[in-house]
């Protein structure tokens, strides 16, 4: 185990606390850079979605994880980014311009949403963001001169510096990866700046933050604006990846998915956004794979334990019928969310930290290190 000896503040806020970080993240980046030449086109496509979801996850972490303001309306920000891109593209605006414009517009709208949110807390904020998302969805469906209504909009392949980049090409993947990496690095820098520390102070105790001289209103609006702007950038990439957008893609379901990303990944670190994105994007193909292969595997196991051929075939058809049931995916989804909230509140990244600590302290690891304290409810109404 390595002990870090910090002698001044600069040591404490370093991006890479020691050389091990440079090596491991450098290796990860190298693997990601050569990935297009190793993976199948389907997996590459999933990897692009991981990048986009992780970008949204980071945006949501800034707002929910670090400023403590829950939002169930991020699908609306994504939609605004996507539609801005699609609309400006019709007038042959170059990619860099509409990419930035989408981010700027979404950021402004985020700030506007942030103002009413100043007075709201907890559940009232959640319902306000849901309402905002519903209103945006309805506007997208009705404002037909701009958004083409429920018929949706086609999004052409993006052209960067005169070269057309198709949505399946490695270049598009590199673009998404670059946006994700820049977002993460930018957010890390933001979080170690005074702004980031103000965010965390507001999350931990608004009253304490205010008495320390933090302008709570200003920083809440800032947090909303930054989070929305990043989601807007992700929205542009999302539109290009899907090449077709319509209002019913940006429902409450998608907002809940984004919250699940950070919930499953872990809400206390940016690693969580990436791990959660991998989980949420890969769960669908994984469940499909289970559905196709599981009956055979279970029948095989039954056969090895001495079941007759007829029994094994019977078991196989029963399991296949169960797997083909409508809505099984939703049930598994629900169970996963509940299990994570109950048993792994720190998320996947928390699990990773526990495993790491177990090996670092090998015989001395105590489960109590991460045990949650018992908390008793006190009313939020007259806090």
């Amino acid at each position, binding site marked *: 185990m390595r002990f870090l000896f910090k002698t001044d503040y600069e040591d404490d806020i370093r991006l890479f606390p020691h050389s091990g970080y440079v090596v491991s993240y450098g290796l990860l980046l190298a693997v990601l850079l050569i990935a297009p030449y190793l993976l199948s086109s389907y997996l590459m496509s999933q990897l692009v979605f991981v990048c986009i979801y992780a970008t949204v996850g980071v945006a949501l972490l800034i707002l929910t994880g670090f400023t403590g303001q829950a939002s169930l309306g991020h699908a609306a920000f994504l939609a605004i980014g996507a539609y801005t891109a699609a609309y400006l593209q019709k007038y042959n605006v170059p990619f860099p311009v509409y990419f930035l414009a989408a981010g700027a517009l979404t950021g402004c709208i985020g700030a506007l949403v942030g103002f009413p949110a100043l007075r709201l807390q907890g559940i009232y904020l959640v*319902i306000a963001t849901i*309402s905002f998302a519903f*209103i945006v969805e309805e506007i997208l469906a009705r404002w037909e001169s701009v958004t083409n209504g429920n018929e949706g909009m086609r999004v052409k392949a993006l052209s960067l510096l005169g070269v057309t980049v198709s949505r399946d090409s490695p270049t598009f993947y590199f673009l998404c990866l670059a946006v994700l990496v820049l977002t993460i690095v930018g957010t890390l820098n933001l979080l170690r700046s005074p702004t980031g520390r103000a965010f965390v102070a507001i999350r931990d105790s608004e009253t304490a933050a205010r008495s320390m001289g933090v302008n709570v209103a200003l920083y809440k609006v800032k947090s909303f604006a930054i989070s929305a702007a990043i989601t807007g950038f992700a929205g542009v990439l999302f539109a290009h990846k899907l090449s077709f957008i319509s209002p019913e893609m940006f429902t*409450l379901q998608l907002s809940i998915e984004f919250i699940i990303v950070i919930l499953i990944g872990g809400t206390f670190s940016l690693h969580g956004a990436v791990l959660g994105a991998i989980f949420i994007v890969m769960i669908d193909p994984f469940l499909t794979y289970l559905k196709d292969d599981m009956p055979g595997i279970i029948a095989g196991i039954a056969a090895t334990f001495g079941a007759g051929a007829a029994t094994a075939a019977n078991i196989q058809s029963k399991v296949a019928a169960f797997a083909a049931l409508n809505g099984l995916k939703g049930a598994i*989804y629900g169970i996963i*969310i*509940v299990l994570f909230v109950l048993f792994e509140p720190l998320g996947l990244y928390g699990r990773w930290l526990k495993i790491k600590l177990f090996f670092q302290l090998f015989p001395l690891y105590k489960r109590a290190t991460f045990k949650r304290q*018992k908390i008793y*409810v006190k009313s939020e109404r*007259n806090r």
Partner: protein
Amino acid sequence: MLDFVQQLVSGVALGCVYGLIALGFVLVYKATEVVNFAQGDLMMLGGFFAFTFIGMMGLNYWIGFAGAVAAMALFGMLAERIVVRPILGYPQFSIIMATIGLGYFLRSVAGMIWGTDDFKIETPFSQGVLRVGSLVLAHDKLSVIAATIILCTLLWLFFNKTTLGTAMRASSENMLAAYYMGIPVKRVVSIVWAISAAVATCAGVLLAPITFIHSNVGLVLGLKAFPAAVLGGFGSIPGAVVGGVLIGVIESMAGFYLPEGWKDVAPYIVLLVVLLLKPEGLFGLHARKKV
């Protein structure tokens, strides 16, 4: 004018359905400060239970109704025991996510058991209409309004006049202090979930003739009932019903007088405006800040 009154009455009836579901939200919130996003799905499940008892097993309507309420009360306790009790007292965000997960699960399982078709329950009120002058009021809508008024009154009395109700309010204010005063907090929480599931079942059975029962009805109506509860001020029983009626009336008026599309958004716009002006809802307690 007649159109207006007709719209008003159907809006009030629809609003009472929202109010009934919102009552469930408010009950759980009032007693435990937990927001149950699966409330609409509990209602859906209650409707399906009643459909099984009445439509499939051919029981008498009232017996089937009572059976469904009893079964759902037990189910509410079970859900509380498994999903909510282990995380009681943790940040609201976690509990909201857990109940959203529960909602997903219930919707899918209901879809698997009862299929994805619409179901209708035959009730004693499905046929008749009441004529007042040239105004036509269907019995099923009137039954919803009557049930809402009765349930709301009973629950209000229960919360404000009985010992158990006082214990519930005490445990929501400060769980530890309530425990020290001899209130069995865990049992109180369990009971309040049973009551809220029972109220949800009443809503489900009463609205079965109006909107039919299908596996997504809970999500659709729950998302309208939620603003109703917030509008009334989360934690106020009359507020939930008033909020529900407001949302229902706004929705039916917007559907009638405004161009298409406003019907679905109007309740949310009103909600945002109210939250801007009165962040704690219409009947909410004024929040005082203590350090």
